[in-house]
């Protein structure tokens, strides 16, 4: 029986570029910005990296396909470098590749890095891409917010929540993230916003308004992974280790059968179950110190609280209103501002979530530092609620 990943791999160093509208630089600079920070944090030389995984989702708006753009940008010579892509969960895929490489014993030190340059498209939001020659013939092209907005219809229908109550609750989700983002100097959006502004914003995809949607950003994030033994031999103390890595991908059941009611994300539930098992978590609400979830849209974050088991089904909208996930709440969520305010450079996002947990666990989160966190869960979604990908990474202090 598989023994799982728990505590087999430690984070040696991490880096994250400033996210936002980085008119000043290209993907190559973003990659170097994140990598330079991580290398310094790890205290190693570039040549000590033995393998690398590069996450980039939208090759056309970025640096093209393959891993070559990464090996060129970071001048990684003669080592295996792979490019991974799994929609908005791409960053987590890069982490999985590097973590598993270390855990397998194939390499001692591996790099996971992701970057996206979304502000070179010329417009806001994500570009529309072909879904393949067959799907293009029948599947409607909806925007990303339209995919997730449907959760609101499903959630309201299942739990009998009024349009007004749900709109206020999802607005409260974004309000909280703006409060947090205001304390993050690397965030794309660093401004607190009033509830009234959020609720009155123009509609993007009913019922989601502008403030229910995350920022689409430029940025890069990376992690250098090794074994706990090597980390200690390099002088690291208070190690942050990987507790679980889970991934769930739709097989079509949600969008092609009546077995999904539209009020939750099946992939999140599948991945959470696997991750909790691997990490030995039996009571997520009590054991998890903090959450970084895929708040691409406010409604996504709301249902994710139920999918992760930190709210009861049908209760998340009330928990949100009661401040349960605020910075001073029972389980702080999106303490770095989340996708909503830190931003969402797709290939980087899954790694950026882990970066925040790493800062918090090592006591380096500055004005947004939480008190003695031990375990953080990152939740990274790709695709749409009824046909997508969910990656969950749990990291924590070694020994927890």
């Amino acid at each position, binding site marked *: 029986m598989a023994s799982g990943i728990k505590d087999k791999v430690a984070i040696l160093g991490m880096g994250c570029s400033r996210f936002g509208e980085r008119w000043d630089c290209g993907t190559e600079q973003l990659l170097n910005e994140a990598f330079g920070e991580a290398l310094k944090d790890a205290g190693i030389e570039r040549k000590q990296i033995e393998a690398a995984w590069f996450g980039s989702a939208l090759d056309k708006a970025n640096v093209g396909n393959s891993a070559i753009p990464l090996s060129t940008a970071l001048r990684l010579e003669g080592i295996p470098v792979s490019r991974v892509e799994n929609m908005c969960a791409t960053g987590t895929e890069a982490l999985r590749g590097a973590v598993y490489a270390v855990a397998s014993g194939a390499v001692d030190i591996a790099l996971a890095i992701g970057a996206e340059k979304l502000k070179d498209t010329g417009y806001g939001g994500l570009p*529309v891409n072909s879904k393949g*020659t067959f799907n293009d013939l029948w599947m409607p092209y909806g*925007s990303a917010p339209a995919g997730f907005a449907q959760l609101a219809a499903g959630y309201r229908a299942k739990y009998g929540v009024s349009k007004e109550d749900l709109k206020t609750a999802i607005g409260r989700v974004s309000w909280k993230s703006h409060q947090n983002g205001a304390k993050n100097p690397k965030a794309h959006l660093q401004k607190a916003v009033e509830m009234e502004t959020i609720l009155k914003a123009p509609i993007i995809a009913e019922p989601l308004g502008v403030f229910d949607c995350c920022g689409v950003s430029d940025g890069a994030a990376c992690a250098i992974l090794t074994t706990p033994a090597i980390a200690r031999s390099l002088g690291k103390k208070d190690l942050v280790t990987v507790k679980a890595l889970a991934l769930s991908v739709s097989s079509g059941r949600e969008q*092609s059968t009546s077995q999904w009611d539209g009020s939750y994300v099946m992939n999140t539930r599948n991945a959470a179950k696997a991750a909790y098992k691997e990490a030995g978590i039996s009571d997520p609400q009590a054991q998890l110190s903090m959450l970084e979830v895929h708040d691409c849209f406010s409604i996504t974050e709301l249902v994710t609280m139920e999918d992760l088991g930190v709210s009861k089904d049908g209760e998340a909208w009330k928990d949100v209103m009661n401040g349960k996930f605020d910075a001073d709440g029972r389980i702080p969520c999106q303490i770095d501002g989340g996708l909503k305010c830190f931003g969402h450079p797709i290939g980087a996002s899954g790694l950026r979530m882990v970066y925040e947990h790493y800062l918090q666990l090592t006591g380096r989160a500055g004005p947004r530092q939480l008190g003695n966190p031990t375990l953080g869960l990152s939740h990274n979604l790709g695709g749409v609620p009824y046909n997508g990908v969910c990656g969950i990474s749990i990291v924590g202090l070694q020994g927890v």
Partner: protein
Amino acid sequence: MQTTSGLKSFGAFIPRRRLQRAAIAAAHAWAFPGLKGQAKGERAMCGWDEDVITMAVEAGRDCLRGSDASRIAGLTLASTTAPYADMNNAVFVGTALRLSSSAGGADVGGSTRAGLSALIAACRAAGEQDSLVIAADKRSARPGSVQEMQTGCGAGAVSVGQGAGVIARFLDAETVSVPFIDHFRKAGADFDYGWEERWIRDEGIARIVPQAVSRLLKRLNLSGERVAHFGLSGGPAKSDAAVAKALKLAPERVLPDLSVNVGDTGTAHPLLLLVSALERAQPGDIIVIAAFAQGCEVIAFEMQQAASDTGRRGLAGSIAQRIEETAYLKLLSYEGQLDLDWGMRAETDHKTALTQLYRSADQIFGFVGGQCSACQQVQFPRLPTCVNCGESDTQKPYPLVDEPARVATYTADWLQYSPSPPLYMGLVQFDCGARLLMEMVDVGAAGIEVGTPLTMSFRKKERDKLRGWDRYFWKASPINPNPSASPSN
């Protein structure tokens, strides 16, 4: 004994959007205040995703409802506005109607009388196997023209055959072919060029049509009084009444000309008038329909029996299913006469792999999904392995077009480019178990909600402006887009 041949079924389709003529007149009042005199009633207007192919499919479905489409021997599609000049539009329509691949498919056109010409030809050639005649037009007119107020769009369909199922017996037909040019449109031109209405009415219709009808009635040994339903297409307003007067037909025998609520549907018009007659005729009634254009075609039927109740929408039902439209600029934008700035999101390339289209033709045109023979799950798309039980190569074709369905999830997307924002989309749940993400169209003022009953309609999905190819697929629309409104007729 001679076998009875004639019409066995009929169907109709009028696009749901009805543009108020007052809105057109108001938009042009600064330049053409005289249009106010035409500003009565409403005209049917195609959505950006509707054209001759989609309307023909809808009328054909209505006609074939409750019958076995695979038994149709051939389809003739009559239109002056079919989207493709070289590509058999009728075969395209027939595939969406799931006709047999051995059925014939022929496009005819060249004149707005082509619909009636095709029907006459089909009636004369009626054989043991039924054939289908569909006429459809999406008529464009220059902004500010009288034609813009008068034209409409729609499709009529009839099946023609022999034997006990005939509901209206074909009696005979008459043709006059003369170079009377009331209007024309050169190949490739956008709009018709028309001559003075008074000349058309007095020198054209008044002289040509009564003579042709009289000749036909005389040959049939019928007096004008026997004609219970008379319809004329192709003429200015009230020309039908003038012809009826010349033929000494009582005014109430003239079928409504559809000008007040649909507009002139060109090639489709004689078939729609025929459908209107079939909806009201009693056994024994004589129906005479004439189409004026470069002379005229006239056809006569004798009603045999009421059509069986297949739940068809018909013309009356099509007229009643309306969404009132007052935004005139929508017409211009849909027709491509107004080039709005849709932004960079509209720049996406929509190249279609014709190889893939042919491989999946029954799924895309016919909306045929699969049913797993192992677990019975109905599914779309039909892939090699069952979405529910994981068994491979167990999929049997399962048509979804007429299956009851409801909204499972939805949203109105204002971000994604659509020529008609917002783009309504969501998961559509069929009662048979199938579910898929679909675009939702013809959403009325009442909107949609989880559970809203839906019906399927064949539409354009995307336009490939670079190559001139349109993708077609099925979209869902509320069965009743306007629950609170009373039907109009």
